[in-house]
């Protein structure tokens, strides 16, 4: 079942001589439960692609259809509601709310949707992420790895249609990075969570079902990985 369809996506920055094409006619589709990694050199448009997929950035042209909804045609408020229900975003620099503790950060998108807290799910996520003893700490009191776990917890709590991770291990040491990667893969495997991961780490990328190669804003290769490491 196709969960994501991208059609001829173009993103331009600047005007005239300074115009830069960050994405240049990118098209692809992703099946539900698939794990896709996107790799490419710096400036190839990986993050731009992910932000557009996550509905936090707008394309210059093209369409992004997630679970049957063209998110590019949604107004601000509808897009916000769509984001909190259907998309989980994990950033390289975590982007947690500094004033909320671990529990509150994780439950935030769910609460924003006006739904009551599912305490069991929260407990499960927190303990699964290994944050049980840090539940009442603010992000500033956590290590980078712990913050990224919170970020993943926040992205997964609402059971989104698609989980987007923008270099989630890029800011972490190798061991912690591996732990985070394992968590993401586990969510993909165990809960059939569609996962699109941007990374510089080829080793991690090769653990995906498919790998997209991006260069100068163009999707130059869409490779299916046969064996998972």
């Amino acid at each position, binding site marked *: 079942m196709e969960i994501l369809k991208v059609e001829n996506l173009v993103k331009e920055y600047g005007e005239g001589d300074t115009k830069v094409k960050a994405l240049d006619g990118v098209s692809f589709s992703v099946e539900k439960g698939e794990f896709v990694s996107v790799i490419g050199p710096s400036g190839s448009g990986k993050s731009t692609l992910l*932000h557009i997929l*996550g509905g*936090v*950035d*707008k394309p210059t042209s093209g369409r992004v259809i997630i679970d049957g909804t063209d998110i590019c045609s949604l107004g*601000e*408020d509808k897009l*916000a*509601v*769509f*984001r*909190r*229900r259907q998309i989980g*975003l994990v*950033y390289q620099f975590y*982007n*947690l*709310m*500094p*004033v*909320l*503790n671990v*529990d*509150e950060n994780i*439950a*935030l*998108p769910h*609460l*924003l*949707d*006006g*739904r*009551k*807290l599912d*305490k069991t799910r929260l407990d499960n996520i927190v303990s699964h992420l290994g944050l049980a003893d840090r*539940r*009442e*700490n*603010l992000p*500033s*009191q956590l290590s980078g790895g712990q913050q990224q776990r919170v970020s993943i917890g*926040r992205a997964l709590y609402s059971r989104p249609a698609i989980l987007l991770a923008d270099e989630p291990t890029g800011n972490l040491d190798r061991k912690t990075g591996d732990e985070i990667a394992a968590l993401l893969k586990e969510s993909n495997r165990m809960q059939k969570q569609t996962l699109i991961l941007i990374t510089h780490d080829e080793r991690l990328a090769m653990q995906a079902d498919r790998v997209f190669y991006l260069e100068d804003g163009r999707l130059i290769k869409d490779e299916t990985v046969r064996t998972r490491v």
Partner: protein
Amino acid sequence: MNNIVFKVTKKYMKLNRRRTAIAFAGITLMVVMMTCVFVGKETVMKYIDRVASLDKGSWHMIAYDVDAESAKTIASRKYVEQAGLSEQLYCIDFPQTGEPDLVPFLNIKAYSADSFGMTNITMVEGRYPENSEELIISDYALEKGADIKIGDKISGELFKRILVSKRKKGGTEFPHEGISLPAGGIAEVPVSFAYGEETESFYETREPTGVSGEYTVVGIMKSPSYEVHNGGSYAALTFLDKPRADALNVMIRLDTAEVSGTQEVEDDITSITGEEHDFDYNDMLLAFSAMSGDSNINTIVIFMQIFFTLFTMAASVILIYNVFNMSFAERSRYLGMLSSVGATRRQKRQSIYFESFALLMPALPAGLLLGMGVVYAATQLLKPRFDTMLSVDGPMICGDVPMTLSFGITEIVIVLVMCAVTVLISALIPAIKISMIPPVESVKGAADNYTKKKKRFKTRKSLLEKGRPELMLAVNSTSRTKHLTRSIIRSIAVFATVIMVTLYGANSIIKVVEAKTAEDGWMPVLDGYDYAVAAELKNGGFDYVKEALAADRNVTDTKEILDSFLSVRLSYDDISDELMDGYAAVWGQYDDHDPAEYREYVKEAFFNELDVYLIMVEDEEFEYIASKGKADMSLAKVGAEPAALVYNEVFLDTDRYRDGEVCHGYKYVNVRDNILKAGTGDSIDLLSFDPDKGENIKIPVKIAGMADSEAISERYTLSPSCIYIFVNEAAKEKIISCPYDQSTGIILFADKDENSIKQLNDTFMGFTSNENEAETIRLLGKDALNAAANIKQIISDIIKILAYCFTALISLVCLLNLYNSIRGRAAERNKETAILRSVGMTERQLTKMHDLENLMLLAKGLLTAAVICTALCVGLRYVVVSYFGNVRIASPILLALGITAVTAAISAIMTRLCNRSSREDIISEIRRETV
């Protein structure tokens, strides 16, 4: 600039343009306010000084009968800015007079050159005298028909006017103010004494001074302020070139910075000459130099200056401190970087001081110039108001006196020092705080939280489980980001506190001045009427006024009010025990009085009768004010039997109720309700003494009701140090028919035609001066009735203006502070907002969250303000009551509510304005690092 710390700081300031601009604006505003306080005060005071000088001149005091040697010593004193000598040469025959039977003399004084300038001697024609043989004469003499011109000669013997008693025995007689004439003795006649007044007990003669004079008239001067019209002599001045060795008068203009009061000068002069002297004071001028004989006024002027300066400093400190505090996190980051490469704590502190003073340096000239501009604009704007106030009493016509900026190097230095101190204080705490942060915490961006690493932040389960994300976010963000929220709470608290305390303080000062200036008695409120004319009821004066008004077709509406003028009394037996105890308590403050003996005392000393103000009004008026009070309207209706409405409040204090030589401390008693034993529906007897029968005539009236100030204030202004009783027409008829009644009448009337008013005034003046000299008819305009009519009241009005201007200006600083805090917090949270949007928060939810945050911060700020305001207002009240005593300052509840509403509205508007969503993409905002 070689200092790398300063270089980085400068760079940081450039990058953070908005915050730097706000800090600069704040510091500049502080300089503006300081300039306004000091230059403004100096400008206004100098202007008033100039205006006040128009009346008597620029001298502050005159010491009489000083010898020449002592006069020189006095003139050389440090506190003397300018000194002039004068000498009284007494009278000379003036054959050219136009009023030989009334004013046959010239009263000649000799002035030194300085004295001419200090007494505002203005020439109408000719020039000042240049030697002791030249003379100038008052133009009043010419006005009265004197046949004199420049070049004429006047010669003769100089003499004193003397009164000689014809009585062989008996005590001292006081034929005129300032004259004590013992039986068989003589007394010198003051210039105000009319010529030719001879009675059975005294006659006037002359005593030669032994000096003869031959004078040439070289000029005609405007009638000098000291000239007394109809006093037997016209004023004339010659030049003092040969001062006598004794009996000189020294006219002194004081250097107000060198002396605290006239008493100090008096004591010094007494110590120089070794003898007591008479002194004369230019009261108006002294009052505005905070050196008047009335210590209350002096204290008020000083109190106000301290109050304004302290508040300016406090508001500025909070503003600048907030600006530094808001940027604490970023600042600690770059200073942490510097620290990690070797910057010392001292260097980190220096960075803050550098920034403060880098902003202060351009702010000083800018603020000074701007402040002077504000002072200039405000003074030009307010000049007509000042002119009206200062001209009310007539003698000063100040429209021609320019209101120019006045300041000296002292004011500028004070402003500079105060501003530097304020900035230093503001930067001190942030500098110390920032120097204490370890570099690693700064670099990690955890400077704000580094002290609470181990603290746990409990999940607010109720909010989390009930699914109230906006509230949860609002609660957490207001309680967990102290450095951002504190500045807003502080700003709200300061905004509310400053306005509240400034207005309360100003109101207190105004109340002090009003309390000190309020005369016993009452005034009608001229609501709907233009003028009032007052006349005595007896001897036809009042009827004359009524006829004149009735004959004037331009008079459209009249209202008649009579006042018994204390000729009606009440028995002390009718006074309530509470009020009697009040009188006793105040009386007990004097000498060795025992309050327990007060009742016996009044029985003996005052025939057990108490004077009251009886205000007799028309029935319609009586009915109206009764309806405003708690009255029985069946007794108060038009055409009712004799009825009274009692003003049910009396305020007694030792300032007003003097009964004894020595007062053992200030005391006041305020009696509200039950000032009489009788209540509504009861009858009381008003007492009017009949001298023929030697007993009181009793006029029974029914009490229709009791009225408080709220009921009365719409129509009358009362000074509640006496008992006031309003009565209707039926009671009035009985009272004015009493033989000893001395009522006066006031008729309020409306008349828009200025010519008609002039004619009426001439008519009244004609009646007063030509036919019935005993009669006094006074036509009063709105200004005379409603505005200030003496020095203290002028000050009261000026204080009001200054206080409101100051409040407006300081509110601007607080407003800037509040804006800066809210804007700063919003800017710091741009990234947070973007994160919230990225996880699906809608605009509506964001707005709701911001509104909730605002409500919480507002509540905390107002709560803080309430605590501080209460403390400050109570403290202020304590200070005011301790220093000034009889001040009733109402609880400022309405003011507090008003300020709460204004603060809430401003805070809400600013929150909405500052938190408007950025139009940038979410991701750009997330990526953007604040500098």
